[in-house]
């Protein structure tokens, strides 16, 4: 095993340069180190000006997503060892404007996430005295997979459609909409359909499938989108055949 490993880190300092550059850092190699540990070493000991996001260090908060050798990964769950011998190239997630170094502007995603209303919508809340909304294990199983999404945006970075058509609502937002649509307690599917059935919604997806490939939590956004396409099509034909019912 090597004693050190080289990281080529994307740098963008808008107050100093108009184009990004790469800085090379040699960091100690430890078998138990993740990429994030190496970045923290750089920040603490080599160059305190390096900017990047991180928080939980255990693959839950979804804030440390970056490209490692071109592949979108959570840097807190990716071992340096998996990318040896190096140099390991670290870049910000693609598809998002870079504010500084490895920090992208995620405002676009946050707006789209809110647009699909990722919360339980009820026509009418039942009184507290009537107790909780019960669910069978099978009903839980219907949406559980999608509820694992941590909003890390790796799927957006992997999706070429999002890069080419930035108005596309994107994989995670649609998967989260599906998470609530498939929840037996939810009644908001129609409200979400208004946003998701637009051209920039589910129909923007051409099924490259990379979103599912890179998801660190085993969510299947590509599957969610295709399922949504089927249900949107069925709803459309239902409304054609039975226009009164859809009123």
């Amino acid at each position, binding site marked *: 095993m090597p004693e050190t490993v080289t990281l080529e880190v994307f740098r963008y300092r808008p107050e100093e340069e108009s184009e990004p550059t790469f800085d090379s850092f040699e960091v100690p190699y430890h078998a138990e180190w993740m990429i994030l540990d190496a970045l923290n070493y750089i920040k603490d000991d080599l160059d305190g000006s390096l900017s990047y996001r991180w928080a939980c260090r255990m693959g839950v908060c979804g804030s440390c997503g970056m490209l490692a050798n071109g592949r979108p990964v959570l840097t807190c769950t990716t071992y340096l060892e998996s990318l040896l011998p190096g140099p390991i190239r670290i870049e910000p997630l693609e598809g998002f404007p870079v504010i500084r170094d490895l920090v992208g502007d995620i405002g676009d995603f946050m707006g789209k996430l809110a647009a699909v209303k990722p919360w339980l919508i009820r026509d009418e809340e039942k009184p507290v005295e009537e107790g909780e909304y019960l669910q069978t294990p099978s009903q839980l199983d219907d949406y559980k997979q999608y509820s694992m999404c941590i909003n890390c945006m790796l799927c957006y970075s992997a999706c070429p459609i999002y890069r080419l058509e930035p108005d596309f609502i994107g994989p995670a937002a649609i998967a989260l909409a599906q998470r609530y649509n498939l929840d037996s307690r939810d009644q908001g599917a129609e409200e979400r359909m208004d946003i998701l059935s637009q051209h920039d919604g589910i129909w923007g997806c051409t099924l490259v499938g990379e979103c599912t490939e890179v998801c660190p939590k085993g969510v299947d956004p590509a599957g969610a989108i*295709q*399922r949504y396409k089927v249900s949107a099509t069925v709803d459309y034909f239902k409304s054609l055949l039975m226009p009164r019912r859809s009123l």
Partner: protein
Amino acid sequence: MNPQYRAYHPRWYRKSVPIFWWLRKRSYAAFIARELTSVFVAYSAIMLVVLVLAMDRGEAAYVGMMDWLATPIVVAAHILVLLVVLFHTITWLNLAPMAIVVKLGDRKLPASAVLMGHYGAWAVCTAIVAWLLIWR
């Protein structure tokens, strides 16, 4: 922050997408290759329409069309078209379990059952067309 301000912020770095972005990854290239097979599917559909139109124009037109279809170069080209269309069809059908989840009561139908349903329907359609064309 005002979203308009964000969209036109001059200092934030935006990477442009190169025209050959799909050559960067094997999976992207495979995706584009499959998309291109749609051209062959469209060709097959157009060829069918042309054949029907030839029938409509009378016996001479139809026989002329059939003679052209029997020339070796057209036969070779159409074998290639058939192979590409088969590839398109099979890869399309294989995606069906991703889009269709069937629940019978509390039980989810396995992906293989959805797949078999699609291949079964394809086999039945093919058999009907073959019966009409060959044996009837």
